[in-house]
Protein backbone atom coordinates (compact mmCIF):
# COMPACT_ATOMS: atom_id res chain seq x y z
CA UNK A 1 0.00 0.00 0.00
CA UNK A 2 3.05 2.22 -0.13
CA UNK A 3 2.58 5.55 -1.89
CA UNK A 4 -1.14 5.17 -2.57
CA UNK A 5 -2.28 8.26 -0.65
CA UNK A 6 0.30 10.69 -2.05
CA UNK A 7 -0.13 9.53 -5.64
CA UNK A 8 -3.91 9.48 -5.42
CA UNK A 9 -3.94 13.01 -3.99
CA UNK A 10 -1.77 14.35 -6.80
CA UNK A 11 -3.84 12.56 -9.47
CA UNK A 12 -7.06 13.90 -7.92
CA UNK A 13 -5.79 17.50 -7.87
CA UNK A 14 -4.63 17.23 -11.48
CA UNK A 15 -8.01 15.77 -12.48
CA UNK A 16 -9.91 18.62 -10.82
CA UNK A 17 -7.69 21.27 -12.47
CA UNK A 18 -8.22 19.72 -15.89
CA UNK A 19 -11.99 19.32 -15.62
CA UNK A 20 -12.30 22.72 -13.97
CA UNK A 21 -15.51 21.85 -12.16
CA UNK A 22 -16.47 20.93 -8.60
CA UNK A 23 -19.78 19.15 -9.22
CA UNK A 24 -20.36 15.94 -7.20
CA UNK A 25 -20.09 13.92 -10.43
CA UNK A 26 -16.56 15.20 -11.11
CA UNK A 27 -15.46 14.89 -7.49
CA UNK A 28 -16.55 11.24 -7.33
CA UNK A 29 -14.96 10.43 -10.69
CA UNK A 30 -11.79 12.18 -9.58
CA UNK A 31 -11.59 10.16 -6.38
CA UNK A 32 -12.16 6.87 -8.26
CA UNK A 33 -9.51 7.73 -10.89
CA UNK A 34 -7.07 8.98 -8.25
CA UNK A 35 -7.34 5.89 -6.05
CA UNK A 36 -7.04 3.60 -9.08
CA UNK A 37 -3.87 5.36 -10.22
CA UNK A 38 -2.47 5.35 -6.69
CA UNK A 39 -3.01 1.59 -6.37
CA UNK A 40 -1.47 0.95 -9.78
CA UNK A 41 1.69 3.07 -9.72
CA UNK A 42 2.08 4.40 -6.16
CA UNK A 43 4.62 1.79 -5.13
CA UNK A 44 6.87 2.77 -8.03
CA UNK A 45 6.71 6.50 -7.39
CA UNK A 46 7.05 6.74 -3.63
CA UNK A 47 9.66 5.16 -1.39
CA UNK A 48 8.55 6.55 1.93
CA UNK A 49 4.99 7.65 2.74
CA UNK A 50 5.91 9.87 5.68
CA UNK A 51 8.33 11.83 3.49
CA UNK A 52 5.96 12.15 0.54
CA UNK A 53 3.16 13.57 2.71
CA UNK A 54 5.30 15.84 4.88
CA UNK A 55 3.93 19.37 4.40
CA UNK A 56 7.28 20.95 5.34
CA UNK A 57 8.85 19.36 2.28
CA UNK A 58 6.02 20.59 0.06
CA UNK A 59 6.44 24.08 1.50
CA UNK A 60 10.16 23.97 0.70
CA UNK A 61 9.21 22.89 -2.82
CA UNK A 62 7.05 25.98 -3.20
CA UNK A 63 9.75 28.25 -1.76
CA UNK A 64 12.24 26.70 -4.14
CA UNK A 65 9.92 27.22 -7.14
CA UNK A 66 9.48 30.93 -6.36
CA UNK A 67 13.14 31.53 -5.52
CA UNK A 68 14.20 29.72 -8.68
CA UNK A 69 12.04 31.82 -10.98
CA UNK A 70 12.48 35.18 -9.33
CA UNK A 71 16.21 35.04 -8.53
CA UNK A 72 18.16 32.21 -10.18
CA UNK A 73 16.56 32.37 -13.63
CA UNK A 74 16.58 36.13 -13.93
CA UNK A 75 20.21 36.46 -12.84
CA UNK A 76 21.43 33.79 -15.24
CA UNK A 77 19.34 35.11 -18.12
CA UNK A 78 20.74 38.59 -17.83
CA UNK A 79 24.24 37.10 -18.05
CA UNK A 80 23.50 34.90 -21.06
CA UNK A 81 21.69 37.67 -22.93
CA UNK A 82 24.88 39.72 -22.69
CA UNK A 83 26.93 36.81 -23.99
CA UNK A 84 24.61 36.23 -26.93
CA UNK A 85 24.94 39.82 -28.01
CA UNK A 86 28.68 40.21 -27.42
CA UNK A 87 29.65 36.64 -28.40
CA UNK A 88 31.96 36.54 -25.38
CA UNK A 89 31.95 32.83 -24.48
CA UNK A 90 34.37 30.28 -23.12
CA UNK A 91 32.59 26.92 -23.34
CA UNK A 92 33.71 23.65 -21.82
CA UNK A 93 32.50 20.57 -19.97
CA UNK A 94 33.28 20.50 -16.26
CA UNK A 95 32.83 17.85 -13.59
CA UNK A 96 30.58 18.77 -10.69
CA UNK A 97 30.42 16.54 -7.60
CA UNK A 98 26.92 15.61 -6.46
CA UNK A 99 26.16 14.85 -2.84
CA UNK A 100 22.47 13.96 -2.93
CA UNK A 101 21.67 10.32 -3.57
CA UNK A 102 17.92 9.90 -4.09
CA UNK A 103 16.66 9.74 -7.67
CA UNK A 104 14.19 12.61 -7.26
CA UNK A 105 16.78 14.94 -5.74
CA UNK A 106 19.30 14.21 -8.50
CA UNK A 107 16.65 14.81 -11.14
CA UNK A 108 15.73 18.11 -9.52
CA UNK A 109 19.35 19.28 -9.40
CA UNK A 110 20.07 18.19 -12.98
CA UNK A 111 16.90 19.75 -14.35
CA UNK A 112 17.50 22.98 -12.42
CA UNK A 113 21.02 23.24 -13.79
CA UNK A 114 19.84 22.65 -17.34
CA UNK A 115 16.96 25.09 -17.02
CA UNK A 116 19.30 27.82 -15.82
CA UNK A 117 20.85 29.51 -18.82
CA UNK A 118 24.55 28.98 -19.33
CA UNK A 119 24.70 25.38 -18.13
CA UNK A 120 23.52 22.10 -19.67
CA UNK A 121 23.99 18.72 -17.99
CA UNK A 122 25.51 16.28 -20.47
CA UNK A 123 25.70 13.15 -18.34
CA UNK A 124 25.42 11.94 -14.78
CA UNK A 125 27.10 9.05 -12.99
CA UNK A 126 27.33 7.94 -9.36
CA UNK A 127 29.19 10.91 -7.93
CA UNK A 128 29.52 13.52 -10.66
CA UNK A 129 27.47 15.60 -13.04
CA UNK A 130 29.10 16.51 -16.34
CA UNK A 131 28.01 20.03 -17.13
CA UNK A 132 28.53 22.00 -20.31
CA UNK A 133 29.20 25.51 -19.08
CA UNK A 134 29.16 28.51 -21.35
CA UNK A 135 31.71 30.51 -19.38
CA UNK A 136 34.24 28.25 -17.68
CA UNK A 137 35.98 30.15 -14.91
CA UNK A 138 37.55 27.17 -13.13
CA UNK A 139 38.27 23.51 -13.78
CA UNK A 140 38.29 22.54 -10.10
CA UNK A 141 35.15 20.43 -9.45
CA UNK A 142 34.54 21.95 -6.00
CA UNK A 143 34.92 25.52 -7.23
CA UNK A 144 32.65 24.85 -10.19
CA UNK A 145 30.05 23.42 -7.87
CA UNK A 146 29.99 26.58 -5.82
CA UNK A 147 29.19 28.63 -8.89
CA UNK A 148 26.76 26.26 -10.59
CA UNK A 149 24.59 24.29 -8.23
CA UNK A 150 25.29 24.69 -4.53
CA UNK A 151 21.96 26.42 -3.89
CA UNK A 152 20.01 23.91 -5.97
CA UNK A 153 21.45 21.03 -4.01
CA UNK A 154 20.62 22.60 -0.66
CA UNK A 155 16.98 22.88 -1.66
CA UNK A 156 16.94 19.40 -3.21
CA UNK A 157 18.17 18.00 0.08
CA UNK A 158 15.43 19.77 2.02
CA UNK A 159 12.70 18.67 -0.37
CA UNK A 160 13.58 15.08 -1.21
CA UNK A 161 16.22 13.60 1.07
Amino acid at each position, binding site marked *: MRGVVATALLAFITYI*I*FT*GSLTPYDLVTGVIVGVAIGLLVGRFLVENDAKALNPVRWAWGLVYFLWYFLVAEVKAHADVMRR*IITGDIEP*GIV*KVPLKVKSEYARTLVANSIT*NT*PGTVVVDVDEDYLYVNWINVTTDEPEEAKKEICEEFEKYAERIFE
Partner: protein
Amino acid sequence: MSWVNYLIYAFLAVNITFNLLGSIALHRFPDVYTRLHGATKCTTFGTIFAVFAVAAHALYQLHVTGDAKYLQMTLHSFVALIALLLTNPVGAHAIAKAAHLSGYKPAKAVIDAYEEKLGGGKE
Protein backbone atom coordinates in the same frame (compact mmCIF):
# COMPACT_ATOMS: atom_id res chain seq x y z
CA MET B 1 -9.88 48.78 -22.72
CA SER B 2 -7.54 49.53 -19.93
CA TRP B 3 -4.15 49.18 -18.33
CA VAL B 4 -4.50 45.38 -18.44
CA ASN B 5 -3.98 45.55 -22.18
CA TYR B 6 -0.69 47.36 -21.71
CA LEU B 7 0.37 44.76 -19.17
CA ILE B 8 -0.39 42.00 -21.68
CA TYR B 9 1.55 43.84 -24.38
CA ALA B 10 4.51 44.19 -22.02
CA PHE B 11 4.51 40.45 -21.24
CA LEU B 12 4.28 39.60 -24.94
CA ALA B 13 7.11 42.01 -25.74
CA VAL B 14 9.39 40.28 -23.20
CA ASN B 15 8.36 36.92 -24.64
CA ILE B 16 9.21 37.96 -28.19
CA THR B 17 12.51 39.55 -27.13
CA PHE B 18 13.70 36.34 -25.48
CA ASN B 19 12.61 34.14 -28.36
CA LEU B 20 14.41 36.49 -30.76
CA LEU B 21 17.57 36.28 -28.63
CA GLY B 22 17.27 32.50 -28.70
CA SER B 23 17.21 32.56 -32.49
CA ILE B 24 20.18 34.93 -32.61
CA ALA B 25 22.06 32.58 -30.29
CA LEU B 26 21.48 29.74 -32.75
CA HIS B 27 23.35 31.71 -35.40
CA ARG B 28 26.10 33.16 -33.25
CA PHE B 29 27.27 30.23 -31.16
CA PRO B 30 29.86 27.81 -32.56
CA ASP B 31 28.65 24.30 -31.71
CA VAL B 32 25.68 22.18 -30.74
CA TYR B 33 26.18 22.55 -26.96
CA THR B 34 26.32 26.31 -26.85
CA ARG B 35 23.41 26.49 -29.29
CA LEU B 36 21.40 24.37 -26.89
CA HIS B 37 21.78 27.13 -24.32
CA GLY B 38 20.15 29.63 -26.60
CA ALA B 39 17.56 27.34 -28.12
CA THR B 40 16.21 25.77 -24.94
CA LYS B 41 16.65 28.38 -22.22
CA CYS B 42 15.58 31.54 -23.96
CA THR B 43 12.43 29.92 -25.31
CA THR B 44 11.52 28.57 -21.85
CA PHE B 45 11.87 31.98 -20.29
CA GLY B 46 9.92 33.54 -23.17
CA THR B 47 7.13 31.02 -22.76
CA ILE B 48 6.83 31.87 -19.06
CA PHE B 49 5.91 35.39 -20.09
CA ALA B 50 3.48 34.14 -22.75
CA VAL B 51 1.74 32.23 -19.95
CA PHE B 52 1.72 35.37 -17.78
CA ALA B 53 0.06 37.25 -20.65
CA VAL B 54 -2.66 34.60 -20.94
CA ALA B 55 -3.10 34.63 -17.15
CA ALA B 56 -3.39 38.44 -17.05
CA HIS B 57 -6.02 38.41 -19.81
CA ALA B 58 -7.96 35.55 -18.20
CA LEU B 59 -7.90 37.04 -14.70
CA TYR B 60 -9.07 40.39 -16.00
CA GLN B 61 -11.92 38.75 -17.88
CA LEU B 62 -12.74 36.79 -14.72
CA HIS B 63 -12.89 40.05 -12.82
CA VAL B 64 -15.14 41.68 -15.45
CA THR B 65 -17.50 38.83 -16.33
CA GLY B 66 -17.24 36.56 -13.28
CA ASP B 67 -17.27 33.53 -15.58
CA ALA B 68 -15.44 30.56 -14.02
CA LYS B 69 -14.15 29.34 -17.38
CA TYR B 70 -11.50 32.09 -17.24
CA LEU B 71 -10.15 30.72 -13.96
CA GLN B 72 -9.86 27.36 -15.67
CA MET B 73 -8.00 29.03 -18.55
CA THR B 74 -5.42 30.41 -16.09
CA LEU B 75 -4.94 27.08 -14.36
CA HIS B 76 -4.56 25.26 -17.66
CA SER B 77 -1.90 27.60 -18.92
CA PHE B 78 0.07 27.10 -15.69
CA VAL B 79 -0.22 23.33 -16.09
CA ALA B 80 1.21 23.75 -19.60
CA LEU B 81 4.05 25.81 -18.12
CA ILE B 82 4.90 23.12 -15.55
CA ALA B 83 4.86 20.43 -18.25
CA LEU B 84 7.24 22.54 -20.33
CA LEU B 85 9.58 23.10 -17.39
CA LEU B 86 9.79 19.38 -16.70
CA THR B 87 10.25 18.19 -20.29
CA ASN B 88 12.48 20.90 -21.77
CA PRO B 89 15.62 20.15 -19.70
CA VAL B 90 15.17 16.41 -20.25
CA GLY B 91 15.22 17.00 -24.00
CA ALA B 92 18.32 19.16 -23.63
CA HIS B 93 20.11 16.43 -21.62
CA ALA B 94 19.25 13.88 -24.27
CA ILE B 95 20.46 16.02 -27.18
CA ALA B 96 23.71 16.97 -25.41
CA LYS B 97 24.56 13.41 -24.42
CA ALA B 98 23.65 12.01 -27.84
CA ALA B 99 25.77 14.65 -29.55
CA HIS B 100 28.78 13.88 -27.37
CA LEU B 101 28.48 10.12 -27.74
CA SER B 102 28.15 10.39 -31.52
CA GLY B 103 31.40 12.30 -31.71
CA TYR B 104 30.61 16.03 -31.80
CA LYS B 105 33.23 17.55 -29.51
CA PRO B 106 32.63 21.00 -28.03
CA ALA B 107 34.18 23.62 -30.29
CA LYS B 108 36.72 25.96 -28.69
CA ALA B 109 36.31 24.12 -25.39
CA VAL B 110 38.76 25.09 -22.67
CA ILE B 111 38.14 21.84 -20.79
CA ASP B 112 36.26 18.63 -21.56
CA ALA B 113 36.02 16.53 -18.41
CA TYR B 114 33.45 14.23 -20.00
CA GLU B 115 35.90 13.23 -22.73
CA GLU B 116 38.44 12.36 -20.03
CA LYS B 117 35.90 10.15 -18.32
CA LEU B 118 34.93 8.35 -21.51
CA GLY B 119 38.56 7.98 -22.55
CA GLY B 120 39.85 6.63 -19.24
CA GLY B 121 36.71 4.95 -17.96
CA LYS B 122 34.37 2.24 -19.07
CA GLU B 123 34.61 2.78 -22.84
